[in-house]
């Protein structure tokens, strides 16, 4: 293991990590402050796309610099998130729409003409 990692790699890793932390905080503030549920569905995507990508890139960069060879296995996590998060979001949005219709709230009507 090579102990001397160049300073610019450390700075880049640190900048990516701090950017991911800021994205996460912005998402949390949006989650708390926005008014309706359908508005609140949007901010968590900031953490699960940009936040996860930034941390995975930082992890790849840092472990590659430590071992002086490409270490790429952290790609798996953003790819997994890119597959699973839209499924969860769509299911949750359908569930919320269904429940708000059942409760008689003001939401768009179904599109099918049955």
């Amino acid at each position: 293991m090579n102990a001397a990692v160049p300073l610019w790699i450390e700075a880049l890793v640190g900048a990516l990590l701090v950017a991911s932390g800021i994205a996460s905080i912005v998402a949390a503030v949006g989650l708390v402050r926005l008014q309706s549920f359908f508005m609140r569905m949007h901010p968590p995507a900031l953490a699960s796309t940009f936040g996860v990508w930034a941390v995975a890139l930082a992890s790849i960069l840092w472990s590659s610099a430590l071992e002086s060879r490409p270490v790429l296995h952290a790609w798996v996590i953003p790819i997994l998130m890119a597959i699973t998060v839209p499924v969860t979001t769509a299911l949750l949005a359908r569930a919320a729409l269904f429940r708000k219709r059942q409760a008689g709230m003001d939401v768009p009507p179904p599109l099918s003409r049955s």
Partner: protein
Amino acid sequence: MSPLLSGAILATLACYAIAMALAVVRLLRGPGAEDRVLALDFLYVNGMLTILVLGIRYASDMYFEAALLIALAGFVSSAALAKFLLRGEVIE
């Protein structure tokens, strides 16, 4: 590891902690069940990011597998909860 990077890691972990505290606020206060599921999903993502950052901090590969497992468990639990809200049961 230079003080620059360990400071950045500390700041990132503090950001995640604040974000998780805000998500817990939404989890406890949320008017509907779907708000709570959304906050729980956000908590899962933040926990996974925390573990990845700890993996950078301690330069260990074990954290990566734990983060992968947490991502999978978060997907399965959020999908199951959303299905429960939609139909009233998870497996029909």
